C-alpha cells in the first residue's frame, strides 16, 4: 500500500466516527420521526399513513398560537439579548486590555458553571414573593408588602436573556475584536458622531457576529424548555413544552413528531427571513 492510500485510509478512519455519529444520532432518528409524524393511530397498535397530525396544528388554534407566542417571545428575547450584549461586547473587545478583559469574558461564562435547572431555581429563589428581592424591597421600605416577580412573561424574558447572554457575547467579541481601532477613529476624524460611526462602521463590521449570535440565541431560546415552564405563569405556553407533553404525557408521538418537524421548518423559515432581511448569508456568518 502506498502512502497516499494510507493517508486516505487514515482520513476515512478519522471521519468514520463522525459519519456514524451523524447517521446514528442525527439522521436516522429524524427519518424515524418523519415516518412517525406521517401516521395516524386508528386502533391500539394499528396505524395508518396520513397528514392528520400536520393538519391538527393548523386547525387547532391553541397549537399555532402557542407556536406564534414562542416565536415572538424568542425573537424579542434575541433582540433584547443583542441590545444588552452589544455594549457589553464592545466594552470587552475595545475598551479593555489584558487581564481584565479575560476576567470579564469569563464572567459571562459563570452562569454555565451550574446546570440550567439550578440556574432557573436560582432565579426563582430571587424573584418569588417570599424571595430575596421581595424581602430586600420590603426591608428598604420600597415596597409595603411582598412583591411577586415570578410567573409572568417579563420573568421568562429575564431568564431567557440571562441564559443566552454568552452565546451572543462570544461571536460579538470575536468580530468586534477584529475591528481596527483606526477605522473607528477615522470615522470620527472625518466628521462622524458616535451614532453615525456606530451605524456606518461598527455595526456593518460586526454584522456577521450579530447574525450568528442571533441565530444561535434564537434557536436556543426557541428550544428552551425549563425556563419558560418554571418561571412562566399559569398561562405560559412554550412550543417545546407542547412537544414534550405530546411525547411524554400524552403518549402521542405522532403529533409530537409532527410538531417537531413544524418547529424545525418554521424556525428555519424565520432564520432564513432574518438572513434575507439583514442581507447576510449563513456561510458568511458561521465561517
Amino acid at each position, binding site marked *: 500500500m502506498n502512502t497516499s492510500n494510507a493517508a486516505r485510509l487514515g482520513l476515512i478512519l478519522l471521519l468514520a466516527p463522525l459519519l456514524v455519529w451523524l447517521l446514528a*444520532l442525527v439522521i436516522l432518528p429524524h427519518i424515524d420521526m418523519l415516518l412517525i409524524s406521517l401516521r395516524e393511530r386508528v386502533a391500539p397498535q394499528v396505524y395508518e399513513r396520513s397528514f392528520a397530525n400536520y393538519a391538527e396544528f393548523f386547525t387547532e388554534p391553541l397549537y399555532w398560537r402557542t407556536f406564534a407566542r414562542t416565536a415572538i417571545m424568542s425573537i424579542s428575547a434575541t433582540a433584547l439579548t443583542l441590545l444588552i450584549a452589544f455594549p457589553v461586547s464592545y466594552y470587552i473587545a475595545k475598551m479593555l486590555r489584558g487581564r481584565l478583559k479575560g476576567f470579564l469574558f469569563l464572567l459571562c461564562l459563570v452562569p454555565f458553571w451550574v446546570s440550567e435547572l439550578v440556574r432557573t431555581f436560582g432565579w426563582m429563589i430571587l424573584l418569588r414573593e417570599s424571595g430575596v428581592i421581595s424581602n430586600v424591597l420590603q426591608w428598604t421600605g420600597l415596597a409595603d408588602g411582598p412583591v411577586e416577580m415570578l410567573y409572568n412573561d417579563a420573568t421568562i424574558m429575564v431568564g431567557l436573556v440571562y441564559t443566552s447572554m454568552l452565546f451572543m457575547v462570544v461571536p460579538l467579541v470575536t468580530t468586534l475584536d477584529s475591528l481596527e481601532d483606526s477605522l473607528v477613529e477615522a470615522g470620527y476624524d472625518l466628521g462622524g458622531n458616535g451614532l453615525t460611526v456606530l451605524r456606518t462602521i461598527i455595526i456593518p463590521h460586526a454584522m456577521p457576529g450579530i447574525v450568528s449570535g442571533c441565530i444561535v440565541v434564537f434557536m436556543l431560546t426557541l428550544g428552551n424548555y425549563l425556563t419558560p415552564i418554571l418561571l412562566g405563569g*399559569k398561562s405560559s405556553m412554550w412550543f417545546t413544552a407542547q412537544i414534550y407533553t405530546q411525547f411524554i404525557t400524552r403518549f402521542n408521538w405522532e403529533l409530537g413528531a409532527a410538531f417537531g418537524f413544524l418547529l*424545525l421548518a418554521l424556525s428555519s423559515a424565520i432564520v432564513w427571513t432574518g438572513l434575507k432581511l439583514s442581507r447576510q448569508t449563513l456561510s458568511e456568518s458561521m465561517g
Partner: protein
Amino acid sequence: MKYTKGFNTIVKTISGVLVSTGLIAFSAGAQAETLRLLTWGGYAPEAVVNIFEAASGIEVEVTNSNNEEMISKLRATGGAGFDLVQPSQDRISSAQIEFDIYKPINLSKINSGLMISSMLEGTKKNTTVNGKVYGVPHVWGTSALTINTDKASGIKDYTDLCDPKYAGKVTYRLKRPTLIAFAFSMGMDPFAAYNDKAKYADIMAKVEAKLKDCKSNVKAYWSGGDALINLLRSEEVVAAMAWDGSGWKLSAENPKIQTIAPTSGALGWIDTFALPKKTKAEDAAYKWINFVMQPKIAAMITEAAGNFTASKGSDAFVEESKRKLYQATFPPAAIDNINWYPPVPAGLEEMEGKVMDRVQAAK
C-alpha cells in the same frame, strides 16, 4: 457546526428520548446480576438498597421517574432498558393494550402473604389484560388537600380552592387527578363514566369551565413535589390539592400545615411492581419485590417516601408521629370514602389533554 447545535437542542426532546434510552439499554444490559429499577423518588432508599445488595449479591441501579415517563421510556424501547418498573395500577392496562410493553407476573413467585390482601386483589383485578396479571401493589397514597389551618381553615373540598377569599393563594397541578377531583367535588362521578365517552366528555366540559373560572385564584400550577413544598412552606399559598405524603412532610416542620381528606373523597392511587416486556433480571426482580414487602423494610420505605405500603403489618414499624398524621387525615370514615382510580380506558387521556391545554391557554 453551531447551526446543527442549535437544531439539536430543539429536537433533543425528540431524538433524545429515542436514543438515550437506547444507549442506557446497551450499556446496562452487559452485566447479568444487576437489577435496573425504574421507580419513584423515595421508593428505593439507599439504606434498603444496601441491605438488599449485601444479602443477595445483586446490584441495584435506581432511576427515578413518574408514570408518564415510565411508560414513554418503555414504549421507546419496546419494553427494554429496565428490569422492574413501578407505574400506578390504573395506568397499566391501557399502556399494555396500546404499546405492549409489559410481561405478565408469575404470581407463584410472589410471597402474597406479605401483602394486604384487599390491595393485592384490587391491583390484580385492575391490571389484568387478556386474563394475565401485570401488576402487584407496592406503595399507596392519595391526592388530598393540604391547608394552612391558620389561614384557610374554611377549605373542606377541592372546589373550595376556588373561593375568592383565597384568590392568588392556592395551587394545584394541571394534570388528570385535578380533573377527576374537581368532577367528584362538583357532584359527578367520572369513574362511572369511564366507559361512556360522551358522558365523560360532558363531565370534562363542566370541569373545564370550572377550572377556567378558578384560574384567577391559582398562584401557579405546581409541577413537582419540590415546587409544591416550597409554595406551602413559604406561605405563598395557603391551600393546595397535594399528595398526602408531601403534606405530612410539611406538617412535621410546621404543625399549622395539615392534610385533610376532602368531603368528596380523597383520590387513591396504588403504585405497583410491573415487569417490562424485555426484563433481563426477572428473578432478581421477584427477589426485590419479596424483599421490600417485608414489614420492617416496607416501614423504611414509608419513612423515605412519605406514603404507606401494601405490606401487611408494616405500620407497626413506622414512626409514631407519622402514623398520627396519617390517622388525623384519614379517620376510618375517610378511608372508606377514598375514590380509588379504576384503570383508564384508552382514548380518555387525549380528551383530558385537550381540556388541560385549553385551561392553560385561557386568560
